[in-house]
């Protein structure tokens, strides 16, 4: 099934956030300050991307009221 543009963007931003967290070699081993900054930035990115994107997608894919069968 085809994805709309918003879904593709959402997926890409979320994956990019996760990949940003997992860049090999970054931050350097033993660098506490960099680890904390990198961790906090990654967390904010991934949480925000998933939830904001989910909110936007739900505005596109609104749910119909259940049919009274």
């Amino acid at each position, binding site marked *: *099934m085809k*994805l*709309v543009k*918003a*879904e593709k963007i*959402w*997926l890409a931003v*979320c994956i990019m*956030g*996760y990949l940003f*967290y*997992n860049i*090999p*070699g970054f*931050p*350097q*081993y*033993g*660098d*506490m300050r*960099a*680890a*904390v900054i*990198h*961790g906090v930035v*990654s*967390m904010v990115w*991934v*949480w925000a*991307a*998933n*939830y904001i*994107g*989910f909110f936007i*997608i*739900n*505005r*596109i*894919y*609104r*749910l*119909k009221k*259940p*049919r009274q069968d």
Partner: protein
Amino acid sequence: MTLLKPSVMWICIIGYLLIVMGISRFISWNQRRREGHFNVFKATLPWPLLVMTYIASLMSVWVFFAGPGGYYRGGLTYWFSEMTYFPMFVVAMYFSTNKIWVVNARRNYVTPSDCFYDRFRSPMLRIVTGIIFLAASIPYVTSVMVSIAQAASVATGGAMNYTAVVLVIGLAMVVFTTVGGFKSVAWTDTIQGLVFMGCLVFIGIAALMYCCGGSLTACFHMIYENVGDSWFSYPGTYEWTSYGARFGYPFSCMIGYTIMLPHVFVRSAYSGMDLRTQRKVMSITPLLQALVWSFTFLIGAVGIAALPGMDAGVTEMIIPYIVENIINPANSGLAVGLMIMFFVGAAGVGISTADSFLLVGASVISDDFIIHAFRKELTVRQKERIGRIVILCIGAIAVLFALNPPELIYTLIMFSIAIVMPLFPILLYGIYWRRATKKAALICSIVGTVVVLMTYFVWNIGGTWYGAIGLAVNAILMPVISLWDKPDNPAESEEFYAALEEGTERFYDIRHPKSSKEKA
């Protein structure tokens, strides 16, 4: 450790089991009164029940054992790695099991293999995926019973009889799962989920209060004084969060643990009452995961602040250690209460996982193997009877294994998350690409398993990469084999895609945002 007498522990065990069995009995009686005979393996659930059964069956005794120990060893960066994968559940479920839910609304699936069969129409694929899901399920049932019995032994300083605990808990769990069925398990999971979360929060706060004066800042200062900045940076004090490990384990959790393990798969793909329920599961589950694992992290942090330098194997018991060595001298009454909570929490989170695995494992044997293999037309009553007999049989086998667990059990548990991961690309290609063929799906389901076995036994990197390599291989192999193979008959997947399209039309009011041209 001898904080609890065996008599107290037995009162806790029997009391707890009586409550759980009572709830189960009531739910199944009420369901039979309303519906008559019902499918023991399937039910539709409103969102509070589905969220709680999802979380309770997802979490296992590791919350109270390996979890705090993991954070003790892995440090702050391990917490970052977990917190970064939790929210990915939203997007992962949206694009995978939520689509299957839309199809299931018309197709009425029961087992995880049902949707794979429906898309690809391969009986052999049903058998192969059924074996994989079964292999992921049954060892878990045994391992949970083993862990609960060990928790009882730890809480009483070895005074509890291991065999007796396994028999009582194991048989009670098998009986209430057999009698109750899916809806009953969902209710008991909900109660147990609230119980274990409450216990975890209480233990975490108590540990922080008694070890660090109630201050997280003080806790971090103590850690820094004890072990320096290694706990706050990669790869951690015990070198647990290398670059490979910070990706491999959370990634396996993101795909294998929260989506593809069979007991959570049927919950997120089949059990939601409606799409509002599905959306609640997508949005609430990561928040609850973050809550549970953050308190587990808190306990691990308090552990290394108060008791640095513990041997890696001993860190699994950090909760009893904190209770015995720090809280008990200050407040023995509280220590007894916390030890009871440790056991009750471990039992609650463990039983809720084991019964879910038991149920889905039995559904694979009953539906995928017996009913579809023999292709008999059975009434609901006959299916219910077969289902209950199968639950009873494999539950009894799991209990027998738990009495004298073979070494292989622990090996198979390691595999559980890993071996289901390679099925994820098959699922996604099946949903989004009509050109994906049944031959490709079948080959990949086998190749993926082989690659996971090689990851563990040949390359010896299973502890870091789990099923990630198998998943990656299948992500490439599926399109390659599909394009090389001649296309399947479109009629075979027509019902699957028709259900997806019809469901999308039926449930959604799609409002595409206006483009800038349209706005102008």
